[in-house]
Structures are given as C-alpha cells and as structure tokens.
C-alpha cells in the first residue's frame, strides 16, 4: 500500500472514530453538567471542601473560584519543583531554579504545558505525580467548567447564577477525565508505554559494551491525561516523538484521537444543553472543515518538502520519526496546534516553511477547531457572537444568538476576548525581537529565526505549549515573559467569557422573529468560517508575512 493511501485511511479511521463517539460522549458530558444527582463520593468531597453543592454562584464568585484554585495551584507546583531534591522518589534530581519553576508552574496550571526543561533529566516521580499530573487534570477540567457557564448563560433566563464551580470541577474530574484516563492509560501501557516506580534509573550495558541509564518513568498514566486533557507536557524532552511516549503507529493514532475527542464532542454537549442539536452540528461542521483543511494543507506541504535542505534530503523527514512517517506526523501536528495540546511527535522547527507556518496559523485561529477542552468551544461561541453581530450590522437589526440579544455590553466582552490573546502574543513578540538577549536564543537564521519567536509567543499566549524547539527558552527573559504571557493568555479571556455568561443569563428569552438570523443553517456556518479567517487574518497577517511567508515564498 502506498504512503498516500495508508495516510488517507489513517485519517479516515480517525474521523470515523470521532464521529462514532460524538453523540455518546457529547451527551454524557451534557449529563455531567446538568444532572441534579450527586454521587455519594462527591457529596463526601463537598463536605470536606465545605461547599454547598446546591448553591449556584454568580459569575464574579465563579471566576474568583477559578482564579483561587489556579493561584493555589501555581504556588503549590512552584514549591514542589523548588524542593524536589528533598522529596522521596525524586531519582536524585536537583531542585529546579526559581525562574524555571515559575515558568513551569504557570505553564501547567494554564493548560499550556510549555516546557523549558528536559523532562527525563529534571523531574522525578513525585514532581510528575503531585505536581504535573494534578494540574493536567485540573486545568483541563477548568476549561470545561468555563464553557459550561457560557452555555448556561444562553439557556438560563433572568438569573445571576451561572453554576457552581466546585461541583463542575469535581464532576468533570471524577466522572470524565479520571475514568477515561484509567481506561486509555491501560491501553497505552499494553501497547508499550512504561509504567514503573523504581527508586533508580534502569542501568543497561549495551551491545557494544557501553553503559547507559534508562529513564522509563510512569509514562502510561501521564500520557493518557496529557492527551485527553489537551495538556501536552511530556515526560521526555522529545515528547510524543520519544518511543517511550508513543512506541508505534497505533499509539500515535490513539493519542491523536484522545487529544481531539473531547473538543470535537463538546458541540453535541452544547446542542443538547441549548435544546437544539442543529446548533451543535453547525459549530461541529465549522470545526471539522478547518481541521480537515489544515490537515490536508500541512500534509501536502510536508510531502512536497520545499526548502533547500529538504531538497537535498529528498523528503521532510528531518525531525520526524520513521515509524510515524510524514502523514502520521502532519496529522498529529495539525491536531495538536488546532487544540491547545502542544504535544509533538515530530519537530515543528524542521517542518517546511509553509508547513510550520500552518502550525502557527492554526494556533493563531485561537485554537477553536476543535480547541482545548472547553476553551475551544468558548472561543468558537465568542466568534459566533461576533458573526451574528456582523450580520446584524448588515441588515440593521439588534443581533440575537440562541434567543439572547447581543447588546453593547455583550459585544464589549466578545471584542475584549478577541483582542486579548493577539495583544499578548504580538506585544511580547515585539519585545523579544527588540531585546538582544532574547534574540540570541534563536537557533535559526533569517525569517526562520523570527518564526521561532513568533511561534513561541503565539503558542504561549494561546496556551498551546508546542514550540519551534530550536529556541533556547530556559533563560531569564524567556522564563519570565513566557510565564506572564501564559497567565494573561489563559485568564483574561476566561474573565471575559464569564462576564459574558453572567450578562447573558440575566436577559429574558427573546423569541425568534421573521427578521432573526437563523444560526443552525449552512449559511451561518459559512459566515462563521469567513469571520474566523478575516478576524484572524487581519490581526496576524503582518507577523506571518515576516516569518513563514517570507521564508516559504521566496
């Protein structure tokens, strides 16, 4: 079978698997977010936390809860990383330096999982478990919590209550992320991922008489939640390119499925909660079209392998693994940059100029197709609001979406949301390019060096976490500014989403009239896609022109 045929079949099987799980997984998540019943173990936990599970919160209280657990999370993780050398099962690894620990703590709490350290020679078991694994679960769940409030904003009328954060958080962790991680973690271990807890590295005497120490780690359990929660922080520096994180073609495919499944099923959750599955299908179709277009573009660019070095090599295999090949690598790269995952199974820095540029553009779209757990859907819903606003301007009517009027206050929050992430990404890129010490971190020359910097801040501001990894990020400048960019890029948009949810929930329901723009039609899907590309295109085009376009079109 040719590489192209098997590549198509591989992608086709992925689409099939996602289609099969769309309804059950989406319905299950809607059940989790709306059920009135509490599990007994959950009641116990609420008692321990001192939370009344029946009392819904207003949006300011909800966002304060989000910020509180995040601040505590950053502090706790920072301390764990700083005192690692005193913890048990640390494999003799030293404590992390202050700026790197700050960067890492911000990174994992914000669901970014940008890594300025080499995992296999920096972190022992305790830091991985108590520190990183916990944040992999919690940060993923927080994204779903926030989108739940926005959906409730559309559903509820004349109330200031948007949900109970502690209930949402507990349920998503206990009913969704934990059981799924256990099942898929076991599958991954069976497929070859290590999962052990010895107090020392495994020493081996190699065939030629050398010796080495193998870091195997508890990779299976970490890998499952790393992909499912669109986190992306690997045990190993090479992430999912490392054979211990993804030993074969099957694990590669399964990991792509895991990082996409929640994001692609959330439109079903949305449709069920607002009482119209068609609304969910419209959002799903826009996500699917962007994802498929990006996957096709990137695979084509990598197959054509334009570039002087790639021409001599005869392929774009530099930085890619033989067992995945070009199709398996491009499919992974598209999926990881269109979600907030940021795991990599090949080195994006070595992609062809326009293939790597596609990865940057994917993140610039705001990671909405399907996006990170929860964050993808709320990003998409904000753009849907912008779309009905634009359409409303054309016909001179007050725009409505799902029976709620989009008034100046709602538009203000939507506009702030749209502006927040690009501002962080582009301002920090500008600062880095104007700073000599920051520029010295580049691994490449010319436009490709600029692409490394642009990629870095686009990735951090959008909480992706993948990198043009040639950039040496472990410096005072990058650790500090990166930490700030990740925190702003995560929590500013969340604040605006919750404010919007609160504002929508207060409204009464406006019945649709003859002049209302129908939002469950292909026409609306087309409009939404157009708005996404125009908004993003206009914002980022100059920066793209200086980097990947300059390199790829010369």
């Amino acid at each position, binding site marked *: 079978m040719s590489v192209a045929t098997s590549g198509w079949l*591989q992608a086709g099987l992925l689409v099939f698997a996602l289609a099969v799980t769309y309804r059950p997984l989406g319905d299950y998540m809607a059940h989790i977010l709306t059920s009135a019943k509490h599990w007994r173990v959950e009641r116990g936990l609420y008692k321990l936390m001192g939370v009344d599970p029946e009392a819904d919160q207003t949006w300011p209280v909800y966002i304060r809860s989000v910020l509180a657990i995040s601040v505590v999370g950053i502090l706790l993780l920072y301390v764990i990383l700083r005192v690692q050398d005193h913890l048990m099962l640390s494999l003799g690894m030293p404590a992390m330096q202050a700026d790197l620990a700050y960067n890492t703590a911000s990174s994992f709490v914000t669901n970014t999982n940008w890594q300025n350290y080499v995992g296999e020679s920096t972190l022992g078991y305790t830091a991985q478990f108590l520190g990183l694994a916990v944040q992999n679960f919690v940060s993923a769940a927080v994204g779903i919590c926030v989108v739940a409030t926005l959906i409730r904003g559309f559903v509820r009328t004349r109330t200031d209550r948007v949900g109970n954060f502690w209930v949402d958080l507990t349920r998503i962790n206990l009913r969704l992320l934990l059981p799924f*991680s256990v099942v898929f973690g076991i599958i991954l271990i069976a497929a070859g991922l290590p999962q052990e807890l010895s107090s020392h590295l*495994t020493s081996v005497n190699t065939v030629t008489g050398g010796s080495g120490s193998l870091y195997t780690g508890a990779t299976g359990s970490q890998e499952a939640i790393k992909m499912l929660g669109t986190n992306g922080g690997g045990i190993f520096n090479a992430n999912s390119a490392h054979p211990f994180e993804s030993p074969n073609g099957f694990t590669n495919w399964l990991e792509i499925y895991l990082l996409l499944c929640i994001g692609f099923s959330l439109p079903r959750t949305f449709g069920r909660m607002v009482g119209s599955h068609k609304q969910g299908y419209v959002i799903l179709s826009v996500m699917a079209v962007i994802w498929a277009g990006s996957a096709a573009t990137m695979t084509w660019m990598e197959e054509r392998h334009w570039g002087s070095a790639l021409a001599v090599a005869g392929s774009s295999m530099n930085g*890619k693994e033989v067992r995945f090949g070009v199709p*398996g690598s491009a499919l992974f790269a598209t999926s990881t940059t269109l979600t907030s995952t940021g795991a990599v199974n090949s080195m994006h820095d*070595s992609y062809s100029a326009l293939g790597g540029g596609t990865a940057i553009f994917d993140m610039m779209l705001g990671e909405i197709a399907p996006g990170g757990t929860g964050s993808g859907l709320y990003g998409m819903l904000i753009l849907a609001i912008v779309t009905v606003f634009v359409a409303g301007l054309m016909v001179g009517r007050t725009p409505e979406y799902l029976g709620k009027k989009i008034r100046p206050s709602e538009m203000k929050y939507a506009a702030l949301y749209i502006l927040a992430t690009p501002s962080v990404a582009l301002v920090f890129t500008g600062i880095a390019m104007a700073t000599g010490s920051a520029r010295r971190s580049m691994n*490449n020359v010319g436009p490709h060096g600029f692409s490394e910097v642009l990629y870095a801040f686009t990735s951090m501001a959008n909480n992706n976490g993948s990198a043009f990894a040639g950039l040496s990020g472990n410096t005072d400048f990058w650790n500090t500014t990166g930490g700030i960019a990740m925190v702003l890029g995560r929590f500013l948009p969340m604040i605006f989403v919750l404010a919007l949810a609160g504002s929508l929930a207060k409204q009464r329901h406006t019945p649709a009239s003859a002049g209302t723009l129908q939002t469950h039609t292909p026409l609306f899907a087309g409009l939404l896609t157009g708005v996404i590309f125009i908004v993003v295109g206009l914002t980022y085009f100059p920066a793209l022109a200086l980097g990947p376009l300059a390199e790829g079109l010369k």
Partner: protein
Amino acid sequence: MLIFTVILGIAYPLVMTGIGQVAFKNQADGSLITNSKGQAIGSKLLCQTFVSPSAAETALDKKDGTSGYADPINKYFQSRPTFAIDATVGGYTIQLADGCTYTASGSNNLGPNDPTLTKLIGLMRTNMAAFDSAGGTTVTAAQVATDAVTESGSDEEPYITPQNADQQAARIATTRGITVNQVMALINQNTTGRDIGILGEPAVNTTTLNIALDQKYPSSDSSTTTFQTGATS
C-alpha cells in the same frame, strides 16, 4: 486542591502503576532486552549506538570535554544519524555524532532552508554512499535512503526504513562473511508493518536486528569507517 492532589496525584498514578506492573510487566518496565545472564542490555524501543570513538573525537575530547564524533562499526546496522555542530574546532565542523544517550531526547531543530543543515545532509549522502558500497554493490549518493541522512525527532528511535536496511545489507554481509540473503532474512524478521495495516509506516528495528545478527552470525571484526567532516563556514 489538596483533595485533588490526593486523588489525582497519588491514587491515580499508583493504581495505574499497580495495574501496569501486574498485567503488562514487560511493557511497564520499558520493554527491556536481557542477555543470557539476565542483565538488561537495552530496550527494544530505543536505539543504541553502534560506533567507536573516532580519532578526531579522541583528539577533540581533550579540547571540549564532550563526546560527539564517532565512527560507525561496519558489522552493525546504523540507526538514523545525530548531527552535532561543534563550534570549538574553528568555525563549524559537522560530523555524524553518537546519539541515543537516553538523557536528553530531541533533534537538531534546524529549519528547512538552513545552510548548515543543507551542507550536513549533503555530507551525509556522500558518507553513507561510501559506507554502504561493499561486496560489489555500489550505492550512489543519490540512492541513499532519505532517513539515513536526516535526524529523527527524538534521537532515540531504533527504527529505519526497509529501504535504508536493504541498502546496508551488502556491507553487513561482507563484514560478517555471510550472504546478503542471510542478512535480508533477519531484516524481515525484525521489520514491523503498519498497525492494523494502515497506522504508521513500516520500520526495521536496528536494536533487535543487531542483537539477532550477533547471536546468529557472531563476528570478531571490529573495523570502522571514518566519516568525512566538512567546515560549513
């Protein structure tokens, strides 16, 4: 936060480790390969270096204290190259270096138009062509398999393409004094196809292949080939 730390940070990984160790002991320990004495000689999922320190490296070690350049041993299949760019020897001298160190996975991260990478790959083509031309078989620079001249993403991958393995077969056969067919039979035994026929790409595992070669056709030959270096600037 403390409650979640206990459930997600302690209970979850420990339970998973328990399940993994009981149900899938071999995989959970890292798919280790042991010799007749029961000692671990590697993992079948990771590459190993089949090289000797080069004369250039012996001289260089005194200067820069880091290991890097190495000469491939003729009787072994070579996994994909690791590129090292060493600025300590007067400008950039580039050479095949030994990867598979297990302490820092990763790649060269050089861009698609990078002038250094362009020269490096060109140099690898001529080196591999000379290295693999043996026993009456000639491999031209243009014929060298693309994965033999590019670095993997992880630097830990034991896999090469079947084309790359076939290209090395004549050299292995000549060095070990066996037939190419005997080598090809072992290549086939150590080749994995696509999972369920469509996932991933066919790959030859150099680690298990070399171990199988040493078991079936032991050879005391320890000859190496010196790869050409070139200054890029």
